[in-house]
């Protein structure tokens, strides 16, 4: 794709810095919202372990054994994803960017363009990687979910969730994100604790989060590592509107501490992290059981440029990284909307 540019012929000064598009920061990586397994070149095994014990009356005789270790392996197989676009610096020759081009017809490289426009490539790819991590569905998983028979109770997917998944575009690189892994665990419906959902508004969000909180296993709430609620971005606004209802006494159902980048929102002591979770779903589990597997965490925010052909001026920009999402201890996880 060439540079899409609506330039104004340069006369005099141009305002610096260039106004960049607003992007969601990759908080998942920047703030360490989940568990990161890097240095995964091809695939890796992640194991969850539990022990079941059963007390029996002592007899002094050789008891029949009961209980024992319960182990489950899941395989993280990072998918390789590439982004590439092409551009020609020649398109910038009559724009503001010509101000720092060296003289000479050969010289059409602009440091301002490189540092302020091209440099957005990294954060943009990183934003997309975060989106894939939480919300991507592969063609295979979409088909598997479509083949399930829905139901209202535990052990079935709701028709609303099934229809929502059917409407998503399959990830071209075959990535399955967290929601996909939770809804469909390798070969069958996931073992999530189901909380049936509805359209969340500022009027009902407190009641809906009460349902989610009530479904969290009691022993998880007592664990040293507290679970987190991973919610769609839109819930932040709904929560704040709910907390500050116009004309009503303030109902502080959600605790909002700090501001800006340091703001922390929680419900009954459980921190809510706002991520690109698809609308209608909220997932609750311990951060350490949600894995972002990759070859190198640095890949996702870096890119390379170069000439497509040595005897031409068309440039490319490419980013390559690998990614897989794995969710362990799924029987402890609560999925609202599933």
């Amino acid at each position, binding site marked *: 794709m060439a540079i899409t540019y609506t330039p104004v012929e340069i006369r005099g000064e141009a305002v610096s810095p260039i106004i960049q598009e607003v992007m969601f920061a990759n908080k998942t990586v920047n703030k360490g919202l989940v568990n990161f397994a890097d240095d995964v070149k091809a695939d890796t095994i992640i194991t969850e372990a539990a022990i079941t014990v059963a007390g029996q009356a002592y007899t002094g005789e050789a008891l029949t054994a009961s209980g024992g270790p319960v182990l489950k392996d899941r395989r993280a197989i990072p998918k390789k994803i590439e982004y590439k676009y092409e551009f020609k610096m020649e398109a910038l020759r009559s724009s503001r960017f010509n101000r720092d081009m060296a003289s000479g017809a050969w010289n059409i490289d602009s440091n301002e363009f490189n540092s302020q426009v091209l440099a957005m490539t990294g954060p943009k790819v990183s934003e997309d990687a975060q989106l894939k991590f939480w919300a991507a569905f592969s063609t295979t998983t979409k088909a598997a979910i479509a083949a399930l*028979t829905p*139901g*209202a*109770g*535990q052990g*079935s997917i709701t*028709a*609303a969730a099934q229809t929502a998944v*059917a409407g998503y575009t399959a990830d071209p690189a075959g990535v399955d994100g967290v929601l996909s892994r939770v809804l469909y665990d390798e070969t069958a419906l996931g073992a999530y604790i189901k909380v*049936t959902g509805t359209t969340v508004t500022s009027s009902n969000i407190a009641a809906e989060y009460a349902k989610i909180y009530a479904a969290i296993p009691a022993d998880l709430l007592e664990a040293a590592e507290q679970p987190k609620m991973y919610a769609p971005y839109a819930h932040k606004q709904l929560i704040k509107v709910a907390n500050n209802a116009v004309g009503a006494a303030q109902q502080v159902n959600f605790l909002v501490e700090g501001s800006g980048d340091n703001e922390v929102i929680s419900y009954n002591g459980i921190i809510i992290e706002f991520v690109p979770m698809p609308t209608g779903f909220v997932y609750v589990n311990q951060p350490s059981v949600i894995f972002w597997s990759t070859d190198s965490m640095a890949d996702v925010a870096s890119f390379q440029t170069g000439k497509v052909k040595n005897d031409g001026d068309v440039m490319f920009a490419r980013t390559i990284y690998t990614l897989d999402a794995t969710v362990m201890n799924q029987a402890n996880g609560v999925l609202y909307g599933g």
Partner: protein
Amino acid sequence: MAKEKKEKVNPFDKGVTYLDVFECLEGKSIKEYCKNFDLTDEQVEFLEKDFEIFKQSKK
């Protein structure tokens, strides 16, 4: 031979699917059917919407 009456299933029981519920409806609405069970208004309201989505997806 009399048609065997299918035992009514609670839609919110674990493992019960909408196909199971559909077979037990006998022409009743979901709201009517739910009177057989101790369900909250919220559960019935959810079931009406979700079952409708299920029926639409099967068309």
